[in-house]
């Protein structure tokens, strides 16, 4: 949990002018550039659980991993919901460029960087997945798995914005901010930037005064700065362009968000919000075939998390290669689109097993094989629903995973 303490602010005049020294400090908040870590101007303070920099650093890295993970699946879900006509706003599944998929992949890369840093610090990765809606503490709204819409984009804009980007300037009318406020109401800026600023601060403290021998953290600190700036710049600009209907992928129609959500020209499909493949849950996917396909999607998702976990714990890129080659770039993408076309969505349900239920590497490998076998059986059972070509492709990849982990 991330708890925030709003700091009392002192204007420079208050500090310099001794006549006013005893006056009560004004209680006002100014837009803050959190890259300038400054005791005088800091707007919020992350309340520490630990006083030992190393422990607090681990704690906040684990928190940020959960946030990046949730953002990643949220953006993936939104990307899957986009109609084919607007494929230009989805983009290719690469880590750079312009689109929802590149943004989702960049969040994955942020998660990757954070987990790698945790590994360098000598601790386990954090690949905990959340149930949605997910209350991330640092945002004034929950994160949801939902179709792309003006309202969801307003939240994404807010999520990625630096404070000054969405703070009205006195006396100035900004149509973008007016529209944003209409969707979200008055909100204080999000504080993910503050979290990363604090993480960087702590990392530098640990680097200069480690509690025990640690590898050099310089590259990781550089990566953290990049994560922080990427969100507040490239991601914000991208989501703003979608929010305003200005992105080229809308094919010149900047009025798309004025269409009825039921309109066939509306940018996204009417997919279920926060679906689950867990039968009996109030949000369960109602159609049995769709629910089974969604469970297949879950199995691939859990296989990916387990492979990533092995990769970070044991510094073995081979596991990552299996996750990417056999699951991320094939079945997960296909199933996400198949489920969206069926009006539901890939639920990314959390599993009680987590990403590392086994007590050692060998047991975890066996468990991934068993999950893969289960997924393979389910795929074969669903071959009529999925189509033979799709089922064949997924069975092949699952078998490759099984074979790779049998060695």
């Amino acid at each position, binding site marked *: 949990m991330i708890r925030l303490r709003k700091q009392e602010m002192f204007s420079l005049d208050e500090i310099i002018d001794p006549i006013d020294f005893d006056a009560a400090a004004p209680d006002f908040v100014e837009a803050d550039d959190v890259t300038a870590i400054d005791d005088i101007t800091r707007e919020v303070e992350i309340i520490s659980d630990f006083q030992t920099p190393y422990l607090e650093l681990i704690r906040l890295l684990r928190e940020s991993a959960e946030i990046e993970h949730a953002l990643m699946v949220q953006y993936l879900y939104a990307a899957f919901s986009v109609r*084919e006509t607007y*494929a230009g706003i989805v983009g*290719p*599944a690469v*880590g*750079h460029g312009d689109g929802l998929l590149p943004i989702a992949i960049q969040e994955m890369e942020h998660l990757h960087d954070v987990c790698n840093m945790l590994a360098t610090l000598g601790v386990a990765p954090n690949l905990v997945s959340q149930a949605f809606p997910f209350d991330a503490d640092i945002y004034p709204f929950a994160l949801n798995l939902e179709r792309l819409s003006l309202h969801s984009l307003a939240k994404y804009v807010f999520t990625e914005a630096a404070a000054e980007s969405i703070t009205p300037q006195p006396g100035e009318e900004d149509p973008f901010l007016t529209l944003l406020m209409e969707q979200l109401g008055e909100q204080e800026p999000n504080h993910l930037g503050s979290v990363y600023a604090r993480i960087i601060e702590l990392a530098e403290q640990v680097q200069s005064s480690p509690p025990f021998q640690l590898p050099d953290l310089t590259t990781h600190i550089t990566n953290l700065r990049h994560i922080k700036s*990427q969100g507040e710049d490239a991601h914000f600009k991208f989501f703003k362009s979608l929010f305003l209907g200005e992105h080229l992928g809308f094919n010149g129609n900047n009025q798309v968000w004025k269409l009825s959500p039921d309109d066939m020209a509306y940018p996204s499909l009417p997919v279920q919000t926060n679906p689950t493949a867990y039968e009996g849950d109030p949000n369960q996917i109602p159609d049995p075939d769709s629910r089974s396909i969604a469970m297949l999607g879950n199995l691939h998702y859990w296989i990916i998390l387990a492979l990533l976990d092995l990769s970070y714990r044991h510094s073995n*890129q081979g596991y990552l290669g299996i996750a990417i*080659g056999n699951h991320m770039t094939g079945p997960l*993408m296909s199933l996400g689109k198949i489920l969206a076309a069926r009006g539901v969505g890939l639920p990314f349900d959390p599993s009680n097993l987590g990403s590392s239920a086994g007590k050692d590497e060998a047991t975890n490998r066996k468990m991934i094989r068993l999950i893969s076998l289960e997924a393979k059986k389910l795929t074969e059972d669903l071959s009529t629903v999925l189509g033979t070509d799709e089922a064949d492709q997924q069975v092949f990849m699952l078998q490759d995973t099984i074979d790779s982990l049998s060695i």
Partner: protein
Amino acid sequence: MTYTRQKGIEFWFEYDNVFLLAVPLDVRQAYAALGDFIDKPRNQLRLRRFQGTFPQSFINDMMPLRDGLLFLAERQLQIIDAHFPGSDSDVQSAFEDFGQGVLWDNRPPRVIRGIPIHMMDGAAATMVGYHRWNGFIRAVILLGGDEARWLTINRFVALACAIQTKLNPGQGNPNNRPIQSAELQVLRDKWLVMSTDDLDREFGRLPVIP
């Protein structure tokens, strides 16, 4: 033409902009027409080889994408030929530098995005871009592209992948170590003589074994 690192930078600058970072309208339209194609050649190539139905089934898989794939292939060749006309050795050098992560470029958009070095995204197992490229080239060859030309390029792609896998250069590191001559020759001797079948087999692994 005598290759220089600056020529390599200029080549990759244009290449990255056209296909990734500042995509012009014609390429954007080709991407839109192709839809979600980026992993399809690679994934189908693996499947059809495993099933033993390659090449005909793979050709059937790729036929709906033919026009778009051949268009993109032609655009790639245009850029290569504009920068290194008639010189495969220069193209090879450009790929070798790419794999080493020694092509630092201060210009936007790369530097603004925090990716100043012209190299494949990722490291080892996450460098799926080279594998996708192999799948793409395979499809282009079987759909009517110049087999000899594209085999040469595919070997360069594989060599760059092997170099980058071996050296693991850091994006944003201006001091990535260049490959030693002896190391490079070992990799050249291995990768520049491979057949298309050999390359498909090697790219079946992620990461590749340099």
